[in-house]
């Protein structure tokens, strides 16, 4: 990267320039190996997409490998009729929106408040929050306590446990500390209170870091599966898309296992018939669940380095 900036960008360097024959061999191998890695990461997604729009009888038998065959979009239109799927989509979208908004607001507010040296016992409260990164009680004690709080079988069980995220708070705090002091001083002399300062001075200038946090929080909410599994056993209408998808696959898998283990031909036929309709639908659901992440992916790529620093900052 640096070389590109500092060097003479106009002059094109031949990639093979100044390479010994041995280095050239290494170069070629490197290109091929990375092509393989890229293929391994990208092809499964491509495979699922082309299968979801190909003729179902072909995709069931694994005939669609390189390009879509006999393209149709019925699988997608049929998805609307699957009971519970639309509800699950609504829950997933809702928890992503509400959860992200609350997480971002909390991170920005607490991140800012923890820079207020005037606050009573500021350092103590900061440590009280930050240290929660390093321990957890274990899932079962956690589930029992969430039940005691009434967060099981309750939509807010998706939201409240994820609102206060120490990582994000530390990130905001560090960002606020890097802002020039004068920014706040001037407003304070004019008589602005703490909340006023936060809303009109701080919030507008920390937008870049909030965008980073929002994207990571949203991806986390969208991908969350464990809280659904642990907290919502009795309210199927609260199931998320991730959970529904898991159910489809595990059902399909048990059917496949049944088919390969049984000698009863009727059961084989019945199993095959059911599994067959499931294959194409399952792939379409997979595409729908993965699509939002893929769509925002190009936009949040530039936040990557910042995002990984979220995991590396010190408290």
């Amino acid at each position: 990267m640096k070389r590109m900036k500092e060097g003479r960008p106009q002059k094109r360097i031949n990639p093979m320039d100044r390479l010994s024959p041995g280095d050239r061999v290494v170069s070629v191998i490197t290109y091929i190996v990375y092509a393989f890695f890229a293929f391994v990461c990208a092809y499964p997604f491509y495979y699922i997409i082309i299968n979801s729009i190909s003729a179902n009888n072909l995709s069931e038998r694994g005939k669609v490998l390189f390009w879509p065959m006999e393209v149709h979009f019925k699988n997608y239109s049929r998805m609307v009729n699957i009971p519970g799927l639309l509800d699950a989509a609504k829950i997933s979208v809702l928890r992503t929106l509400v959860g992200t908004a609350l997480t971002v607001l909390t991170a920005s507010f607490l991140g800012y408040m923890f820079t207020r040296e005037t606050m009573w016992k500021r350092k103590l409260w900061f440590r009280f929050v930050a240290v929660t990164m390093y321990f957890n009680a274990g899932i079962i004690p956690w589930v029992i306590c969430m039940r005691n709080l009434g967060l099981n079988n309750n939509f807010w069980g998706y939201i409240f446990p994820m609102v206060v995220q120490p990582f994000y708070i530390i990130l905001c705090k560090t960002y606020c500390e890097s802002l020039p002091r004068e920014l706040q001083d001037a407003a304070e002399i004019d008589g602005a209170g703490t909340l006023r300062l936060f809303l009109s001075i701080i919030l507008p200038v920390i937008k870049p870091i909030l965008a980073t946090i929002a994207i990571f929080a949203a991806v986390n909410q969208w991908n969350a599966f464990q809280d659904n599994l642990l907290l919502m056993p009795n309210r199927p209408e609260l199931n998320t898309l991730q959970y529904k998808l898991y159910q489809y696959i595990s059902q399909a898998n048990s059917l496949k296992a049944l088919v390969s283990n049984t000698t009863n031909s009727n059961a084989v036929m019945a199993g095959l018939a059911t599994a067959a309709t499931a294959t194409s639908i399952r792939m379409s659901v997979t595409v729908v669940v993965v699509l939002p992440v893929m769509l925002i992916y190009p936009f949040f790529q530039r936040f990557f380095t910042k995002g990984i620093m979220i995991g590396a900052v010190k408290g």
Partner: protein
Amino acid sequence: MRMNPKKAQAIREFLYILPFLILVALMSYYPLYGWVYAFHDYMPPKPISSETYVGLKWFQFIVSNPVRAADVWRVLVNTFAMSGISLAFSWFPMIFAVFLNEIRCKPYQKFVQTVTTLPNFISWVLVYSVAFNVLSSTGAVNSVLTSLGLIDKPIAFLNSKEHIWFKMWLWLTWKNAGWAAIMYLAAISAIDEQMIEAAKVDGATRMQIILRITIPCILPTYFVIVMLNIANFLSNGMEQYYVFQNNFNRKTIEVLDLYVYNIATSGRGNYPLSTAISMLKSVVSVALLFITNTVSRLVRGEGFV
């Protein structure tokens, strides 16, 4: 009585964050109270009381009951094996980043980086869905192998217990390696360009530059990753293993985090035993964190906590 304005502001600012502190107390500290269930004969929905108190019964149960002890041993072996494989191959993302950085065609480099990072942002459920679609008996891999005549009947990649530890590492790497490499790429771009130029002037080959400059410069980053890996040795998380588990591989895929879930949810559900095991796990994990942090402080002069 009037407070002086400074003190009033100090208290007011505290009151602003008080609701959030209460939330943290409820969501992160209160679950620690759940550990008391390890000392009771707890069967939901009946609440615990002084009558249900059984002391250390469940902790003793882990070792005294031979079937259970064998089970815990099996789970520990699985946990150590999977974490051990991860630790043994933890250099992979670093080497991945080093050679990716050597690619001179920048668009290609960018492309590889983009594509290999994508799996990091999908959930384990989706990874499983991808795995199922590609590796099932009618999936892409089996289709290709069959049509090439290399196999006559489909290989059960997912419904078998063969090499499950290694397969789990492969999926973990598939998901995380590209993302982990970004950190190393950031570290590489921070290397002083003059050092590399000087080495080139002295006639160093690319391999020499990699071995003598690039890798030594990013070793501190790698060291931190290794320490974090050790600190999380017992915590593989349960999601990956939960979605990949089935009747064929259950015995070898169960890691501690999944085990505590399974014993609490399968059959009648043993909450106290599960709590006792996760309590022990938490204590060991915190100890590991302290140890690795101390090691890091001794070696690097600063800890990571």
